């Protein structure tokens, strides 16, 4: 099985540790992974801001067409690929691209889906002795429907003290450019999310999406809350109890 990593533009540019952890985790589980360098961005930020970029849809489909499976360490990017690429292609009137995009989207997996549905494991042998709370993120939960997969994986991590995040189904207020176009509403949503996180007494906030974590983490850092954010892959890749990449 030839497996490719789609790192997402955000992880590539700003959060390489989530990408490195994904590679190390998959290799530790005996699954080699390739990183085609022609990849860039899924176009979600553009589409959700009203700018449809069929060029980015085509790039994704072309770059990854030759692989058996594509792993994405992001619920919202995997969601955009699976549920938005065909829509954007159709909106541009390119039915052929829509079919092509849909075919590649069908073998695109968010990380927790890939581990459980393809590699058939919910125990990756990780060790992480810290108090952790998990935010399910809207697009993982509602667009992809990853269900309890991430929690099953986290529950099997040795040493972890996993505490439930109150009101965890509520959006953190990021929403891509929403946080810039409507910063006040976004900040109000973020305030409530941070309150929930702090209430758990966790030292680490974990999620399957670096974008939501960038938002919540940006707020937690600003108020010096003493909570750090880690991508799911960073905890699952850990075998020595640290998240060092």
């Amino acid at each position, binding site marked *: 099985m030839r497996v490719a990593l789609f790192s997402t533009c955000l992880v*590539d*540019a700003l959060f*390489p540790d989530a990408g490195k952890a994904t590679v190390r985790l998959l290799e530790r589980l005996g699954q080699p992974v390739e990183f085609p*360098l022609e990849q860039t961005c899924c176009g979600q930020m553009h589409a959700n801001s009203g700018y449809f970029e069929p060029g980015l849809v085509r790039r994704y489909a072309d770059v990854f067409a030759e692989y058996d499976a594509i792993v994405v360490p992001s619920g919202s990017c995997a969601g955009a690929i699976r549920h*938005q690429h065909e829509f954007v292609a159709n909106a541009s009137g390119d039915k052929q691209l829509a079919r092509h995009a849909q075919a590649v989207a069908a073998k695109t997996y968010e990380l927790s889906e890939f581990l459980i549905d393809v590699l058939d494991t919910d125990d990756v042998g990780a060790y992480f002795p810290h108090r952790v709370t998990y935010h399910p993120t809207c697009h993982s939960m*509602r667009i992809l429907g990853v269900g309890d997969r991430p929690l099953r994986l986290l529950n099997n991590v040795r040493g972890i003290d996993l505490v439930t995040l109150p009101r965890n189904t509520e959006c953190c207020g990021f929403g891509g450019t*929403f946080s810039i176009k409507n*910063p006040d*509403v976004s900040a109000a949503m973020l305030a409530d999310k941070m309150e929930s996180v702090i209430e758990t007494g966790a030292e680490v906030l974990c999620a399957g999406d670096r974008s939501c974590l960038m938002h919540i983490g*940006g707020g937690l850092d600003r108020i010096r809350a003493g909570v750090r954010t880690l991508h799911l892959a960073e905890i699952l890749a850990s075998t020595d109890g640290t998240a060092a990449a």
Partner: protein
Amino acid sequence: MSTGEVIWGKEGWPGPEFSENAKRAVEDSQLRRNVRKATGTIRERRAGLVAETPDWQELRHAGAAIKDDVLHHLDDYLEQFERNATARGAHVHWARDAREATQIVTSLVQATGHKEVIKVKSMATQEIGLVKALESQGIVAHETDLAEMIIQLSNDRPSHIVVPALHRNRAEIRQIFREHMPDAPKDLTDDPLALAEAARLHLRRLFLKTPVAVSGANFAIAETGGLLVAESEGNGRMCLTLPETLITVVGIEKLIPTFRDLEVFLQLLPRSSTGERMNPYNSVWTGVTENDGPQQAHIVILDNGRTNALKDQIGRQALRCIRCAACLNVCPVYERTGGHAYGATYPGPIGAILTPLLVGVENAPQLPFASSLCGACYEVCPVEIDIPTVLVKLRHDAVKAERHKAQDATFAAAASAMSGRRRWTAALKLAPLLRFLKHGAPPPLSGWTRTRDLPDPPKQSFREWWTKR
């Protein structure tokens, strides 16, 4: 085409500038508390009832399918409804827009010779600005739904589709009654029972003396020509049964094919709207029944932008909406802004798509952006309206309709940087500059850095690490 008051933006009420309205709303601590408390209560009640309904998802599919059938064959169903309603003694009128609808209703009221009417709560009459239109012709329309009455007494605007005074708490309502209700008892407290009793006595006097009523309808049944109003208080039924003349304004999308289809909708609606297994009052009437109820029945069938919405292949699903407001109650944006921020008759997620679809996105360009696209609205919608997808489609229409030079250029530059390996690798070299913006970036990023830090840029990008490993 005149679309009445779908968009306010006049007479001192908020305009369609959502982000400005929202900024003011999130600073109002009383509003925040009232809206959070109320939406939280309904949300929990709904969740409990949905959990006990094993065929909930099948009911949603059925509701969506029935409404889609209606929208596909709207011409047939409208004519069928008109034929059957007319055969049963109702008078059917057609209104293309708000102006025509209010003129028809005004002349019907004038023909009765009366100067006052009682009103059943109705979004359609809200949308066409009927109360003000009647007022301008010297006709006083009394809202009889308790919450609508509170709104009318205080010269306020509804902020929710089902619970229009949701932004008010009981202490505020007591104050409104004391100031604006002439027959309110002097020693009125904020006990909900006392408030309800004061309203009840006030309304009873109106019901007994007013022979003309205006209503909307939740459903119009093509097969029988009948109409249905679902409500909680019984004040609607008073209006529907006591007067001599009943005038009903109903949107073209309110049709359902057969009486039996109510089986689906009367399970979906109460659970989604008020968190009840059944509406306390479901009033169905068909034309005129001799010596029973109003002897003059008029039905004004309203377009007012609905055929515009129907033209939009992605957006037309918004016309399935049964006005339950479940999407408002779960929306994290609505919960923090309340309904007034949307500056239009229909607030919340459904309003963010319905308003631009009805009036044209160029007249409400900010509304499709009033969402974080979290998808909670779609999850609860009883007729499966994919609100996030319609929002994205309308955002696309909005950026095409109204050019923003700086924003267009930014996205074009980003798309160009992402158009190939070499350009993207070059763009990644700019990441370290983020360090200087971390605590305070210039606009438009300043909205972010006012309450959040930007991340520390990494020493190397992921692909740099990959190629060197």
